């Protein structure tokens, strides 16, 4: 297989995985437990973390954008696309930055990613709705992101170590 074909396939598989994960977590609505708009486990973030660690920032970005676009085709609307894209991009940026720091583990990286995702979502909601009102949801969402970030952080450690090199390029 040529290098670019391999890369394409790899990204496609990860995109599909990310999509599947985001659909799957929709089946376990956390909002029943904590009625906060925009609250989710963020399993799709796993794929971003994995892609950042084991592939490259460029591929992680492509996978993220493809996942958001396809996700909105699957069942979302334009507003949901704006939320997930803003949140996802901000999370990606923050995590890519933090991964370069020497002292952190994936727990810290994931928590920061989850917090960044929530912040991005709320920022997008503020822009779309044209009012600062959604900001009141951010503090509780941030506290929840500590938990969801820890969970996805733990899982991503497993993932990164069990699947170290996905089809070496």
């Amino acid at each position, binding site marked *: 297989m040529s290098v670019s074909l391999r890369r394409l396939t790899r990204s496609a598989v990860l995109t599909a995985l990310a999509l599947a994960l985001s659909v799957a977590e929709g089946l376990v609505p956390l909002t029943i437990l904590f009625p906060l708009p925009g609250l989710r486990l963020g399993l799709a973030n796993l794929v971003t973390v994995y892609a950042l660690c084991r592939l490259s920032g460029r591929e992680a970005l492509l996978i993220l954008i493809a996942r958001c676009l396809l996700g909105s085709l699957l069942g979302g609307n334009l507003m949901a696309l704006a939320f997930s894209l803003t949140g996802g991009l901000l999370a990606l940026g923050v995590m890519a930055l933090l991964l370069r720091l020497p002292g952190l583990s994936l727990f810290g990286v994931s928590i920061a990613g989850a917090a960044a995702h929530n912040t991005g979502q709320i920022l997008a909601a503020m822009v779309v709705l044209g009012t600062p009102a959604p900001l009141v949801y951010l503090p509780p969402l*941030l*506290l929840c992101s500590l938990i969801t970030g820890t969970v996805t952080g733990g899982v991503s450690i497993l993932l990164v170590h069990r699947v170290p090199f996905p089809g070496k390029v």
Partner: protein
Amino acid sequence: MRSPAADRRRPTLWDGLVVLAVVAFAVLLVFLLRPAEGSAVTAVITLDGETVAQYRLDQLSQPVTLDVEGAAYPLTIRAEQGRICIEHSDCPSQDCVRTGWISRPGQQIICLPNRLVISLSGTEPEPFDAVTG
């Protein structure tokens, strides 16, 4: 991309710092949002004791006008961010229109001929319990 984080299996002290940073951010936000929440002003419009409309004046981004249906003398209420008034009333006394804008919790506009009251309440404690006059 080679990253030291990707090779660790246990959380580090630096992760704790990230947690602290997120908590600090959340606390800071709550602190910053508090004054905005504290100055909540709700206008309740009652016609002969029945509530006909209710507005959060501090959250109105666009002016709203309301024609109260069922009033004996047709009247138009106008609400903007932070204040409300009776813009027009067909009532004979016009006392309600002359009251002008009200904006603070505890204030009222009364249209006696219509038995209509607009009263403001808020989360901020009012500096007094009642008003005479």
